[in-house]
């Protein structure tokens, strides 16, 4: 049996979502010897399947004061430490004729109590500020909502963890835990690329696997009551709104529209599903209908805007420990010290919470880890900028692709090789991704396939959904005949994965685009015939 570097770690963090990445960063910054493991790619779970909304906390102000306060505090922190992941758009909470306008006053008061600036705007003024908003609105409140790129944010946390000495294994799945007497001492890992297994040992193991954390706990003989709640969202082909638009009422389905980069996202629906379905979630026609109908109430022009794709994520809702019926759901951060709770030392679960509060979750769990390790070092993640967001004089950028890459990688953009025609050639015209940026992502950002590359660079995320860029990128990524066959399989998988999101919304321009893609990839290239493996990673939305 092999072990990772024959080494013993202070802490193993399970899960490459934003919580795991943030925890790995915090632990590493406090001088711990860290191993971060992820069964697929970074941000494949809930982290990569939400609105990309940086909540001001206003959404929770009326129903959950504590969450609202946490949100606004973290919101202000992320603006400083993750500048290159955040777009400061501001948000509106609108009241429509069908809503109760009296709710607005309560809303503003509760926002203020939580420390969220909430300014009542005249509806006419609101239309001038955000021309896409439903012109029938009867009330509007401006709050400091913003847009955030979760892929970028996760990667920046991983990069910083690595800079502080953390080791990272992607495509390594925990298949069992190693328990000696009443202590968890490590995990058994399977390399999902080649099937090899290996052991890794640590004093403390942190379970940050989102909804899948219930399964990790199960391996350790510990029960966590989790309720997977599926949320579906739709991405539109261009940016209809430039401010976040919410409904000013108690949180409900499909009432948030977020501008992200060149697109916008409406969501979400909410549906309890069995945990077995979490690995292959599909957006249903009924969900598409609901999202469209509700979305058009926020911004009527969504009705005539092309939908690029649909996708679904799953919220890791946790039942409160003090409720034996399991019905009372905790919306806040849940840190479970299994030593105290279940008599299993060396094992901690961090769950609940939301993307917005990932840093706080990481801080809380790292505090507990340090306590177990008798380390007395304070958390610095709230004040230390993430890689890419360090203060630095703006370099002048001239080309579209340089500007696009600057947006994606922040100050790290300077490490992308440029100047030579061979590096500057454009792989993806929609998103301005150069050969140099692809190479940078492959060597520095744990890119193993085209879908990983998409998460790091946005290749194939534009309106064409990978029409030509996927083939070009695959060409850049492969080096020899052996990798050529792998790249063809990868290309085939990528095309199918893009289709997974398009299929639920296959009408209008999408259907035309789908036929064109099929003409190019199947009739012209014959990629489906050349692929010798039909493994389609359904979890890889």
């Amino acid at each position, binding site marked *: 049996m092999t072990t990772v570097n024959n080494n013993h770690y202070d802490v193993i963090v399970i899960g490459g979502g934003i919580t795991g990445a943030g925890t790995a960063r915090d632990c590493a910054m406090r001088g711990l010897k860290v191993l971060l493991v992820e069964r697929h790619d970074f941000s494949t779970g809930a982290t990569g399947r939400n609105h990309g909304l940086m909540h001001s906390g206003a959404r929770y102000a009326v129903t959950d004061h504590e969450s609202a306060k946490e949100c606004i505090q973290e919101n202000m922190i992320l603006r400083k430490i993750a500048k290159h992941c955040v777009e400061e758009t501001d948000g509106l909470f609108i009241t429509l004729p069908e809503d109760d306008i009296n709710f607005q006053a309560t809303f503003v008061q509760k926002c203020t109590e939580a420390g969220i600036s909430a300014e009542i705007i005249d509806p006419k003024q609101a239309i001038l500020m955000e021309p896409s908003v439903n012109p029938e609105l009867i009330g509007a409140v401006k709050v400091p909502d913003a847009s955030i790129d979760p892929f970028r944010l996760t990667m920046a946390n991983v990069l910083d963890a690595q800079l502080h000495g953390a080791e990272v294994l992607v495509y390594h799945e925990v298949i069992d835990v190693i328990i000696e007497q009443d202590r968890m001492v490590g995990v058994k890992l399977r390399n999902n690329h080649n099937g090899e297994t290996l052991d890794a040992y640590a004093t403390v193991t942190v379970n940050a696997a989102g909804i899948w954390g219930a399964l990790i706990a199960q391996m350790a003989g510990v029960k966590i009551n989790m309720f997977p709640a599926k949320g579906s969202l739709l991405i539109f082909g261009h940016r209809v709104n430039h401010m976040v638009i919410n409904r000013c009422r108690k949180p409900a389905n499909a009432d948030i529209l977020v501008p992200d980069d060149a697109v916008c996202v409406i969501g979400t629906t909410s549906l309890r599903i069995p945990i077995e379905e979490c690995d292959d979630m599909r957006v249903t026609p009924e969900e598409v209908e609901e999202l469209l109908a509700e979305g058009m109430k926020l911004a009527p022009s969504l009705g005539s805007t092309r939908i690029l794709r649909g996708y679904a994520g799953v919220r890791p809702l946790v039942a409160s420990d003090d409720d034996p019926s399991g019905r009372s759901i905790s919306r806040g951060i849940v840190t479970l010290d299994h030593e105290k709770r279940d008599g299993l030392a060396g094992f901690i679960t961090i769950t609940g919470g939301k993307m917005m509060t990932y840093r706080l979750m990481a801080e809380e769990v790292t505090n507990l880890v340090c306590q177990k390790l008798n380390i007395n070092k304070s958390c610095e993640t709230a004040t230390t900028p993430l890689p890419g967001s360090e203060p630095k004089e703006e370099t002048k950028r001239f080309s579209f692709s340089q500007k696009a890459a600057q947006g994606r990688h922040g100050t790290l953009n300077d490490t992308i090789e440029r100047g030579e*025609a061979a590096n500057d050639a454009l792989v993806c015209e929609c998103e301005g991704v150069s050969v140099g940026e692809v190479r940078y992502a492959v060597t520095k950002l744990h890119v193993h396939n085209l879908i990983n590359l998409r998460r790091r660079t946005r290749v194939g995320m534009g309106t064409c959904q990978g029409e030509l860029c996927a083939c070009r990128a695959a060409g850049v990524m492969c080096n020899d005949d052996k990798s050529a066959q792998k790249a063809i399989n990868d290309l085939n998988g990528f095309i199918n994965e893009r289709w997974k999101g398009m299929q639920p919304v296959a009408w209008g321009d999408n259907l035309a685009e789908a036929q064109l893609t099929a003409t190019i990839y199947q009739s012209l290239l014959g990629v489906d015939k050349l692929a010798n493996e039909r493994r389609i990673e359904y979890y890889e939305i």
Partner: protein
Amino acid sequence: MKFDIIIIGGGLSGLTAGIALAEAGKDVALVSAGQSSLHFGSGSLDLLGCDEKGNDIYKPLDAIKAVNSKHQYNKLEDVSSLAGVAKQLLERAGIATTGNITSNHWRITPIGGLMPTWLSMEGMATIEDPDQMPWRKVALVNIINYLDFPTKFLASGLRDKGVEVDVKAVSLPELQKLRQSPTEMRSSNIAKVIESNELIVKLAEEVYKVAGEGYDMVLLPAVLGMTNSEKSQQLLKLIKVPARYVATLPPSVPGVRMQTMLRKRFTALGGTFFTGDQVTEGLFEDNILKGVKTAKLDGTTLEADNFILATGSFMSRGLKADYNRVYEPALGVDVDDLGLDRKTWAKIDVTDAQPYMEMGVKTDENLRCMRNGTTISNLFAVGSILSGHNSIKRLDAGGVDMLTALQVANNIIK
């Protein structure tokens, strides 16, 4: 304005019908939006490449006899003779091809696959028998920094078939300018730069330098000759060793060339070409189409005795789908949506036969369109807009385009 025949759509099917009718002495006008699916093509036309199971077809004529009853090939009177006429029509337009209807040959795809096909434009690399590669040692010569000719895949695909492959790349100072702008290294731009005899000679020398000795075939990206085949043929001769072209990622220079040459042939025969325009409305009286209005010819009605709808499938916007229905946007003729609800138009696995691919306008046995269930006696449909075939799965796009167009031309002339 009054014509004998008005054709809507300027792609392969519309131009084929237009040329055939103009050659028969008819006064033909063609309204075209401009783009054609030829621009996404391979430089070859497929007739029937794959059987129901996806296996390659070697003898297409036999396979055509066995196509299912909904396939448009059933409406052709004599497939074999129409196929011969198609080849000659291309020839007269200056488009020489290899291939025939009795046996498919194989084209090399841009990522190194082999696909069965019917007619290949001159200069394209073709293979008679996919189980027996004709070359022992091949040089793949790309243009430096041109990303749309994925040589690594091509080399790997050819090596899998037992061919020894070396990958080379050449450039010319004149291409440096393109290279400086990262969006410019695309096939059509390269074709525009390498136009003069002088540059063709220089390029041939560069290719000969890297691949002149020891190879029994030199394969090049098909990026020369947007308007005629002169330059691309000249380069092959100048290289002095056997050399052929392989299709690139779109835009397809051979495809653009084919459309350009067909259009030239059509206008040389006296055809009228309204370009960059589209039909917005049909003027029907009883079961006859009297005329059409277009977006650009403000108020003018184009009248004709017969009309041909050749606007292509969804990707060409000849068919449109909205939230609830599939429709034909130009004239509002009846569409066969296979009786399917939107939720079942598309299947979950992209490589499955997708039901929407087989949707298209309804026609009678003479390829005449219908409106509200009634046949329009002087309105025909040709090409990809027709229902009943899946050109992605069966590889029959070129054949459906050209042969239905020729059949309709015959039906009208009769």
